[in-house]
Every structure is written in C-alpha cells, then in structure tokens.
C-alpha cells in the first residue's frame, strides 16, 4: 500500500491509500475504525473497471481529506479526459462526496463502481492476526447495502448508501453516469456505523452535503479550540509552527469517554491507541495544563469513576488502582482480553494524585478536588496497601494475569527496558526508580490537598511523614555510589539494577532527589553518554543493552525529555533544561512540527537529522504534548498561590518568546521571555537552536587561552 492517509473524529478514523481506496488484509491497519472495531475493510472505486491514480491529496482538516484522481494506474501520466475528486469527512462513519469531471468535448457514459466489504476485525485481531468466531451477513434493502457481523448477542453493522440512483449488490454499488462535455457528475456516499458499541441503531451521519462546513464530532470546533489556547509569538519561526501543529494534533486526539459524553480527554495515539489510557492521558494532560486544562479535568473524572474497586486477577485490578487501558472491541467484549478496563499500570495511580494537585494549582478548581477526595485517598492507599510487592516499602509490579497481562507496567514497557549495567535482566517483581519518585510526589501533593482542600491536617501530617521517610530510604537504597546516579530499579532481594537511564530525569521532576545529589544527576543527563545533541537517551551509551534504535534502550523520546527538562528546572538547572528544549524543538522541525514517539539515539553530529524510530503511531499524544511542556519550562511558568510566576530561561537562538492569555486561577496572563541573542550575528535566528554551543563553555575555553 502507498502512504497512508488518516482522518479521524474521536475514536472513529479512516486509514486509506493515497487514492482514497481501502484494501485491508487482516494484519493491515487500513479501513474505517470505530471503538476498536473495523467497520470497512474494502472500499475501492473503479470507472469502467479501471482503478484510479492519485494526483494529489489535500489534508483539509484532521477530519477531512480531498483526493484528486485520474483513470489508469500506470506510472506515466496520460492526458486524461476525466478527473475524479473524492472529498471525505469522518463523523459517525464517513461521508464521501464523489465528483467525476468530463474535460472532453464529447459526452461520456461511465460505469462507476464502489466495492465494499468488511471483516469487522477487532484492533487486537489486526495486531495479532487472529481468526473470527462469529458469522458474517450481507443484505440489500431499499437501496442500502448492509454489512453485518454477529456472534451471540454481539452485533456490528455498516450501512452504505448513496444519493444518486445506483444498483446495489452484496459486493458494492454501481452507478451508470452520463456526463455531458465539460460537465460533472456527482453523488454522496454515506458509510454509517449502523450498529455500534452501544447497540443502538443510529446510522445517522454528522455530515450532510452542502452543509456550510463539515464539523467534527466535537462540541468545541477546531477554531474555538485554537482561539481559546494561549497565542504564541516568537522570533524563531519553527516554534510557531510546532506550537500550532501540537494544538491541532491535540484537538484531533480528543476522545470522549462513554461515561462523560461532551467531555474530552487525550487518547494516546493514532491509529492503535485511540482510547483512554491511564498513563498517557495523565501525562499528556499534565503537559497541556497551561493550555487546555479541560483535558485534565475529564481525565481525572473518567479515570476516577473507573478506579479499581476489587481484586480481579484477570484485569490486574486492585481497589484504588487507576486503569491502564480501556478497549471496546470483540475480544474485550468476550473477555478474551482483559481491557474492560485493564489495570496493569503501576505509575498511573500515583500520577493521578499528581495531576489532581497540579490541576488545582493551575485552575483553583477546589470543587473537583473535593468531589474526587475519595478517589485520591484510595489511590494513595493503593501505594502502600497493594503496590508494595517486594515488602520493602517501594512500589513494584508483577502481573497476575500471566496470559494477556502486561509484563512491564511502567512506561518503559518493552521486555528488555529494565536491565543491569552489564545487560542482565532482573526478575519480578520489579521496583523501577521513577515509580518511587511518583509515589513521593503523590504523597507530598496529597498532603497539600488534605491541608488546603479536604481540611484534614492529621492525614496531611501522616502523608508528609511517609514522604520524608520514603525520600530518605530511596536516596540510600537506589543510589549507585560509584557512578553517582540512581539505579533504574531494585530487585526483590535489594540488589540495585544499576543501569544508567533517563529515569533519573523523572526523579528530578518528582522532587525525590536529595539536593546534594542533584548536580551529579544533572551532569549525567547532559553528558555525552546520555545527551545526543537532540535529547537525552532512554539508556546511556556504554550500558550493556544500549542500542541507538532500541525502543527503550537508547532511543530518544520527546515526552521523556519534556519531563526531564521540567525536572532540571525544578532543581535550578535552567540552562540545561533550555538545552534539552532546544534539541527536541530542533528535531521537531524535521517532522514538520509533529514529533514522533521516539527517534534514534545517534550522536547529532553523526546523522545531522533525527532518525525516526519505525512506529505506526502518529500523532502520539505525549509527543504532541512535549512542545507544550517545553514552553512551560522555557518560560519558567509556575502557579504560586493565585499568581502565575514567569521566570524565563530561553535556549540560545530564541531572542523573544511571548505566550499570551495563559488561562488559570488568575484569569488570563501573558508571559514574556527575552533570550541572550547574539547581536553580532542576527542572521543566526531561524537556524537550529541546539547547534549553537552553550556560550559559557565556549567563552571559558577561550578565556583560558
């Protein structure tokens, strides 16, 4: 298949080839998808039996695309007498406006056909190439083609119809079109999700022909969304583009949970992860807080109502635990997969409390904090009552669902991500270091909420005492003395899993790092073994399992770096935080402002451009959120009481940065940053940021000569 074209609306999306056709195989993620189910796997346009050739694709909006086509699929362009336009918009299925233009001086009679079929595959089946257990049916009634699938009470249907007269058979629609010279013929095609996850037969589409403008299935249109976000001005143009791209992609990734219609949280990524995830939704909401706090609000409410309430081994659920992932497909419906929802994440629970506190600090919405008091207390209790699997007072993970549960339940979830310096893999349960940082932060923040909002000073005292105790023990038990960094994990027997990894940056963010150890940690993060020039590697060069294109063992993750920069700022390393922002923002330019999930850990000098890690997920929510968090750290935005404090530290190369109308408990406020622009060389503006060597070090060297 040629390059994939993707449009979406919530968790309904279409992936097609560049001519707009869909020709999916079981393992291929093309088609019309909704609620993790494929509702169309074949959609092929022919004219007089011939496929069409793409001239161009216009991505009008994230939910709308226009394809320009000509007959014939040869590689040599022939002066076609016909051209075809397919304009497609997603919403409750999709709507396609098909137009055929006759450029000839003579009239033509054409047979235009759309072939349609569906395998109703669950996304999990697409990933794992599994066989279906139910039966298919196809019916033609009243000019409508119904594609259906039934397994016991599970029924999913796709309804296909057109506005122009056509003959409908079980494999598609055929039009006999007569087109006068220099005239056009057109029809609307409706592909409706007839029976969906709610079991309701709606079949209505959200797009009608000649409606003034196609609207996404969002109460808040894209324009309003962009209008309400702070506006950015900057003398380094790439940042403006990246900022705009991030806002648009974040709008596209909005997902409305079934329990909260009309409210939106960030789904994790397109196409595989258009659903609610504990970790991804929380971290993205944190990144986006200064820009769109509604995402955090919905995330907190939705994850709160789904908070674990019992022990359930199949779902790795415990009371108080925040979910990992919710799915809606057939395999989940028949409990062949545990995602209804699945709870196998060990960081989402403490991070839930972190987000609740950070949300209140920005918005002053104490009402929500009061409403979620029970959830926050249950989450904090989970840390001590259920997560201490090693019995040593640290959060650790080990799945109880051995069959389809997740082995690694931290963000670095690949099989080899947690290792010793020499490459050995530790056993389970595993207590990775960043989890202890999150737990510490959750207790400190929980204490603040208990004091300020819940008015329970005794509980606050207890949490603070526990936090202080955790910090003391952590700095003793995880610190690798000879290397001067924190081990990536602790084994059940107390052994330090001593690889040097980017998790150290998250520890700075959490505040668990002893002040006396922070300089050494920052030095490691900025060392050539970790900082490539583009960003901080997930695993340091020189470690046993280091591989510059290993998923969590050497690649650079923009989201990881945005939290590392936040951590560096927390401990006063402003310049280092700005350098990390510079590298990742430079990289964003190579991807038209859309940062990938991860890119290679190669030395910047070696490749000159960031090598994208091959992944099918783009845009990805927390990569989309990374530039937003970098804006926060570059401008040094911090809510203190009812005020927004601004303390900018810009990368070299940005002379002026303005973020206007930042919403929060203060109303709206502007933030301005002035950089140390080299006035002798104004031409450098617009160039890459990270290639400008840090001034201090260069000068120092020269002064010594």
């Amino acid at each position, binding site marked *: 298949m040629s390059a994939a074209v993707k449009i979406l609306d919530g968790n309904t999306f279409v992936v097609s080839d560049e001519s707009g056709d869909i020709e999916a195989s079981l393992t291929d993620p093309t088609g019309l998808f909704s609620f993790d189910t494929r509702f169309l796997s074949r959609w092929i346009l022919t004219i007089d039996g011939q496929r069409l050739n793409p001239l161009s694709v216009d991505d009008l909006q994230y939910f709308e695309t226009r394809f320009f086509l000509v007959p014939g699929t040869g590689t040599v362009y022939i002066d076609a007498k016909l051209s075809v336009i397919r304009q497609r918009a997603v919403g409750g299925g999709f709507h396609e406006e098909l137009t055929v233009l006759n450029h000839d001086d003579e009239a033509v009679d054409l047979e235009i056909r759309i072939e349609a079929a569906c395998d109703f595959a669950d996304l999990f089946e697409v990933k794992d190439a599994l066989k279906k257990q139910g039966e298919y049916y196809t019916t033609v009634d009243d000019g409508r083609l119904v594609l259906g699938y039934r397994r016991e009470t599970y029924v999913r249907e796709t309804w296909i119809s057109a506005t122009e007269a056509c003959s409908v058979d079980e494999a598609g629609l055929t039009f006999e079109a007569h087109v006068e010279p220099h005239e056009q013929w057109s029809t609307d095609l409706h592909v409706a999700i007839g029976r969906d996850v*709610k079991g309701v037969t709606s079949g209505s589409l959200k797009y009608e022909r000649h409606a003034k403008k196609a609207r996404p299935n969002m109460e808040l249109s894209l324009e309003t969304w962009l209008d309400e976000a702070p506006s950015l001005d900057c003398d380094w143009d790439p940042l403006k583009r990246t900022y705009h791209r991030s806002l648009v992609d974040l709008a596209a990734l909005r997902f409305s949970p079934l329990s909260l219609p009309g409210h939106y949280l960030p789904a994790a990524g397109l196409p595989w992860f258009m659903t609610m995830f504990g970790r991804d939704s929380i971290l993205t909401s944190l990144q986006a807080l200064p820009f769109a706090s509604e995402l955090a609000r919905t995330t907190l409410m939705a994850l709160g109502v789904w908070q674990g*309430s019992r*022990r359930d081994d199949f779902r790795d659920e415990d*009371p108080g635990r925040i979910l990992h992932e919710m799915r809606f497909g057939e395999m989940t419906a028949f409990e062949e997969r545990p995602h209804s929802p699945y709870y196998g994440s060990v960081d989402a629970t403490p991070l839930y409390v972190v987000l609740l506190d950070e949300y209140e600090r920005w918005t002053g919405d104490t009402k929500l904090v009061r409403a979620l008091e029970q959830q926050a207390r249950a989450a904090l209790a989970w840390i001590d009552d*259920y997560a201490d699997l090693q019995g040593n007072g640290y959060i650790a993970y080990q799945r109880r669902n051995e069959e389809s549960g997740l082995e690694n339940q931290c963000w670095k979830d690949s099989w080899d991500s947690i290792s010793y310096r020499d490459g050995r893999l530790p056993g389970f349960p595993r207590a990775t270091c960043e989890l202890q940082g999150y737990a510490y932060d959750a207790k400190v923040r929980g204490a603040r909420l208990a004091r300020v909002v819940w008015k329970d000073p005794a509980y606050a005292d207890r949490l603070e005492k526990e936090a202080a105790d955790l910090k003391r023990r952590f700095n003793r038990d995880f610190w690798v003395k000879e290397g001067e960094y924190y081990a990536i994990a602790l084994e059940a027997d107390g052994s330090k899993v001593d690889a040097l990894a980017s998790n150290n940056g998250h520890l700075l963010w959490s505040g668990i790092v002893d002040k006396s150890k922070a300089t050494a940690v920052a030095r490691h993060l900025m060392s050539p073994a970790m900082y490539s020039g583009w960003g901080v590697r997930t695993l340091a060069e020189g470690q046993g399992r280091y591989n510059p294109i290993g998923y969590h063992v050497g690649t650079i993750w923009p989201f990881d770096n945005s939290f590392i920069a936040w951590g560096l700022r927390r401990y006063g390393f402003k310049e280092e935080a700005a350098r990390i922002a510079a590298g990742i923002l430079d990289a964003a330019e190579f991807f038209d402002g859309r940062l990938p999930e991860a890119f290679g850990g190669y030395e910047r000098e070696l490749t000159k451009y960031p090598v994208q890690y091959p992944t099918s997920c783009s845009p990805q929510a927390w990569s989309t959120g990374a530039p937003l968090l970098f804006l926060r750290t570059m401008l040094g935005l911090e809510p203190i009481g009812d005020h927004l404090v601004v303390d900018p530290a810009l990368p070299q190369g940005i002379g002026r940065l303005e973020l206007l109308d930042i919403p929060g408990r203060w109303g709206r406020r502007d933030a301005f940053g002035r950089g140390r622009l080299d006035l002798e060389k104004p031409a450098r503006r617009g160039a890459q940021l990270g290639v400008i060597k840090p001034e201090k070090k260069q000068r120092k060297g020269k002064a010594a000569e």
Partner: protein
Amino acid sequence: MEELDQSLLDALAARSLERPAAAFNGVVRFDVDVGGRTDSWCLTIVKGVVTVSRKGGEPDCVVTGDVATFDAVLSGKANAMAALLRGALAAQGKFILMTALQRLFLGSPGADGLPTAGYAERQS
C-alpha cells in the same frame, strides 16, 4: 425460569455501605428478562450508597438483559462492561451511573475459583 436472586442485589447494597461508590446520585433500573417476563429492580444511589427496591423513582439509567447475564455479572462470573460491549446487557441514559455501580460488582474468579473481590482484603 428462576427470577433474579435478590440476595445478590442486597449484597451489592451492603458493599456500597462499606465503601460508597463516589459521590453519585441517581436511579438505575435493572430490567431483567425472565423467560419473556420483565422484572424491574430499582437501585437508588444517594452519595454512592445503594438501596434496592422493586419500585423506585424515575430512572436515570435503564439496564436491560436476561436473568442469566445479570446473575453472572452480579456474582462476579462475568464482567459488566464486557457484557455491555457484547450486547448481553444494554444501558440507556446516564452511562456514568452504570459505571459507578459496576464498582460494586465482584471481580473475576482468581486461581482458586473464588471471586477475588474483597474490600477489606489487603495484599499482606
């Protein structure tokens, strides 16, 4: 066909006293199909605490399904959300209330074949 065992609902209500399912208010009606006959049960939630009756106020959410499905879901043999996705249960109205209620259902059986739910149960 046997009707729904009320003790399952009573046990659910008892659990809600032990651990209220958040600050929800509303009425969820279970319309239970017993061999063609519909038995209705009203679960009234006030600040997360559930009371069960055969007749209640105007429902905010109506859940329909057969007696076998309700029995399985309430006794921890089947998962409520999965049953909804499967079409074995259908919910109309405020779905968030059903989400709040499902917190009080039992979990899937553990290795020993018994439901692993238990609010007082701890890891250690």
